[in-house]
């Protein structure tokens, strides 16, 4: 088990390193000079050149990459061009909005989708199953930002149960914060829950047809017992895969949802930074998101080994 974990860890580090090179290279090719942008159109060439030197933009790409990478490992993400404040601080603030949102959405979608998927699989072919399939088909077809707008229309504008957007900050209390995140989380969770429910259903239908389930029935287990104790656990393996993949979609979806609800999260930060050509911020946020995805993949790999004894080393 240890060797397996170490191998995955090595793989994680390698992916991160390669990703960082790719991100850096991608940002490099963006046309436009950040220094000129910051100083405005009427700045003198000398002032622009001075700012470039000050920001370290004159050094060669390899040197700049090394500086940047070393800085990140230290926790120093550089200083934002536009706001002149350390990026690390800005990112940390926004993280406290985006991360709870993602976790909230993940929790909602999992708690709804898995039981629904199991229910549909155990009543395969019945009206319940058809209903679940129909609902999930609709759920995956709905763009989450449009669903968000509809939620705002119904629950904020008409019913006035929630506000239409904005985030009061955690200093106002956990309840207030969660309330502000509820509509966004629901909007994010809908398509994810639909996909997850379908995957759970099809995985369970597949494992219900496996031989060891027949063996279990031959031992005297009822259908329900065979499903819960044997088929379900085996069906969770492909579900785990999808869960891991879904996390990266969740992050991406959150970026757009934050726009709909005016949430001060990483998504809005990225957009503002792109518009302002604040490359340092863009680089840092992208690396952070990539790191999150790779970390989740690593966690899923470990979870596989915990669930499936075939992946662990023999004694």
């Amino acid at each position: 088990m240890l060797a397996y974990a170490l191998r995955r860890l090595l793989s994680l580090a390698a992916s991160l390193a390669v990703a960082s090179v790719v991100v850096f290279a991608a940002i490099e090719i963006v046309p436009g000079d950040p220094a000129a942008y910051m100083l405005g159109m009427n700045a003198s060439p000398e002032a622009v050149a001075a700012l470039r030197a000050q920001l370290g933009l004159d050094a060669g790409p390899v040197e700049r990459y090394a500086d940047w990478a070393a800085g990140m490992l230290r926790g120093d993400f550089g200083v934002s061009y536009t706001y002149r404040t350390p990026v690390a601080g800005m990112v940390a603030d926004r993280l406290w909005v985006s991360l709870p949102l993602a976790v909230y959405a993940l929790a909602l979608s999992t708690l709804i989708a898995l039981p629904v998927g199991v229910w549909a699989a155990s009543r395969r072919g019945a009206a319940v199953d058809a209903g679940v399939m129909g609902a999930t088909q609709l759920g995956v077809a709905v763009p989450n930002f449009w669903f968000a707008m509809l939620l705002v229309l119904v629950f904020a504008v008409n019913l006035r149960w929630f506000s239409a957007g904005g985030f009061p900050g955690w200093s106002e209390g956990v309840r207030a914060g969660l309330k502000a995140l509820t509509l966004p989380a629901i909007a994010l969770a809908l398509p994810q829950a639909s996909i997850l429910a379908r995957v759970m259903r099809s995985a369970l239908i597949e494992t219900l047809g496996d031989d060891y389930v027949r063996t279990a029935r031959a031992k005297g287990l009822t259908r329900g017992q065979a499903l819960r104790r044997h088929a379900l656990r085996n069906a969770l393996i492909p579900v785990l895969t999808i869960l891991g993949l879904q996390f990266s979609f969740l992050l991406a979806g959150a970026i757009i949802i934050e726009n709909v609800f005016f949430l001060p999260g990483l998504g809005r930060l990225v957009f503002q930074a792109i518009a302002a050509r604040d490359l340092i911020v863009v680089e840092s946020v992208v690396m952070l998101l990539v790191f999150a995805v790779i970390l989740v993949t690593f966690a899923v790999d470990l979870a596989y080994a915990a669930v499936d004894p075939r992946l662990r080393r023999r004694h």
Partner: protein
Amino acid sequence: MTRNLRIGAALAGAFALAALASFVWTPYDVAALDIAARLQPPSATHWFGTDHFGRDVFSMILVGARVSLAVALVAVGIGMGLGVPLGLAAAATRGSMLDEAIMRGNDLVFAFPALLIAILITAALGPSALNAIIAIGVFNIPVFARLTRGAALSLWSRDFVLAARVAGKGRARISAEHILPNLSSLLIVQGTIQFSLGILAEAGLSYVGLGAQPPTPSWGRMLAEAQTMIAFAPWLALFPGLAIVATVLGLNLMGDGLRDALDPRIRRARA
């Protein structure tokens, strides 16, 4: 044809037809601004109402279909055109450096959330429909590569491939004559799925302003513009959203229906 397939094909087909028809005729000219007729709710003259510039929403939806379908279609084309050969090559040379390189490449692209890549590319290269195509297409490549590789690997271990090797055929020839045709149904189904995902992605990009630029109408941008007016002109947000849902739903149903129709076990039973 199963019912799924019929409904799905009908829905998707309707939108494809609408997109094509829009080149020839739309009820109103989408470039024409008619301020006097702005913000009218749906009526007999304007079936889906008008927007804040007086443009007919129904016509805009027809034209918007063009962008959505074109972007998604070409993106799938890129994904298949590059991803499938990569996957075939990886499977045919299993265990080699090429295979490793392709797999690592796939993993790398998957590490970046898809929409994030799209946002990055369109932000770097400038917003336009073409860049949206590239962005979405780039993410389709590893999807098809991984799918093709996995399915091809299981075919390589079958006896009929062994027989072809005994008949002296090389790996490239076997990939083309035996492997690829047996993957076609899988690829068609995945193609429709990626197509529908492409439509959603394009809508998302347009919504944040990174897709097709004005004056070309696009469903996503229509939604962005509708957002501020949702309280008093909800039809502006309703119809483009429904258009997206209907097209994606149609394609997904078609994909499901195709999967059932092309399943060799079912085909054999019918034969």
